[in-house]
């Protein structure tokens, strides 16, 4: 699979929190129109990277370009971002949440959102404060998937969620990939259930790129992504 256009380019990115650098000279390219996984242990810098792309965090050093531009609120109409450990507004119902998306998020398709809510078995009058973690996660994913935007950025979408919700989310992602030509970046620990979804993978260790490549090529040369992950990060 030829890597044509570059959607996101990072050059020697650095971000320090106190003494410990979260990103320590991270360089990478994320290909456009492909599904790329960002993999690595906790503290490797995955979330910091996602936040940088979404414009929440400014790098201390290095350069980051998303679609050729610097990240920030001006670029965010093109980005559907699911934050790490995100929650939703407890006082909302499902229909309030979808209204929030429709009013404030560019590219939000109301019909698609309600279709997804139906697939996810979320009743429009359901209160967010009464939802399980899995239901809340599904709702937040709708706010991202219902948007027709060039970049989908999911930070740990499967974290701490029950199996049924995970399966529904995977199914919704496959549907989305079938219908749209989006650049997708997903960071996750749940590699076993999701490695079939990825076109590319970036492995991050201690704030640097440990390995990057087309997943099919990596399989040919080294084995499954899970195996590669274990080899890279054990010990």
């Amino acid at each position: 699979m030829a890597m044509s256009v570059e959607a996101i380019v990072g050059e020697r990115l650095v971000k320090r929190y106190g003494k410990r650098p979260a990103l320590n000279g991270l360089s990478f390219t994320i290909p456009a129109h492909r599904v790329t996984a960002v993999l690595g242990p906790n503290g490797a810098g995955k979330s910091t990277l996602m936040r940088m792309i979404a414009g929440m965090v400014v790098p201390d050093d290095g350069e980051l370009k998303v679609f050729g531009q610097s990240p920030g609120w001006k670029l965010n109409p093109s980005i559907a971002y699911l934050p790490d450990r995100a929650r939703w507004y407890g006082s909302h119902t499902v229909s309030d949440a979808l209204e929030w998306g429709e009013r404030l998020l560019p590219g939000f398709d109301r019909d698609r959102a309600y279709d997804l809510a139906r697939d996810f078995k979320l009743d429009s009058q359901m209160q967010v404060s009464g939802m399980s973690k899995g239901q809340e996660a599904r709702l937040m994913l709708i706010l991202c998937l219902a948007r027709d935007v060039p970049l989908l950025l999911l930070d740990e979408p499967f974290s701490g969620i029950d199996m049924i919700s995970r399966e529904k989310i995977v199914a919704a992602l496959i549907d989305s990939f079938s219908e749209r030509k989006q650049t997708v970046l997903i960071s996750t620990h749940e590699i076993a259930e999701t490695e079939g979804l990825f076109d590319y993978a970036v492995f991050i260790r201690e704030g640097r790129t440990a390995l990057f490549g087309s997943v099919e090529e990596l399989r040919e040369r080294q084995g499954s992504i899970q195996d590669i992950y274990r080899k890279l990060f054990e010990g």
Partner: protein
Amino acid sequence: MTQPFQPEGGSRLNEFRFGSMRFVLDLSQPLYEQVLEQFRNSIAKGEIALGEKMPSVRELAQALKINPNTVLRAYQELERDALTETRRGQGTFITTDAERVAEVRRKLAVQAVTDFLNKMRSLGLTKDEILRLLQEKGGDGDVG
């Protein structure tokens, strides 16, 4: 969201059943090749009938839990091989050309024999030993 081809009870991750065709993906090998080979074999064996409708790219991707892109690549290759044909608005179908299927079956058989002979030679068997072995073990349908 359309319903995928119904996985039968006890299906595992990355497993797919379609009529008498059944395959499980090995994640430690490239997936595109596996999907392609599985379909080629099944078509050659007749596990999928001539002219039968193939699952859509999305349906297969859902069943296998893989990226639709991978499925699409395999389907495109099958189409190039003339093993399948896409009819606009209706979907993708197995070819009705029995000769084409026979050709593929022959190709696969030739490959299997070639592999077999290479293996025998690497074990050091002569041609006569191989033939004798074949007659011993060949028989009518009982192998092994």
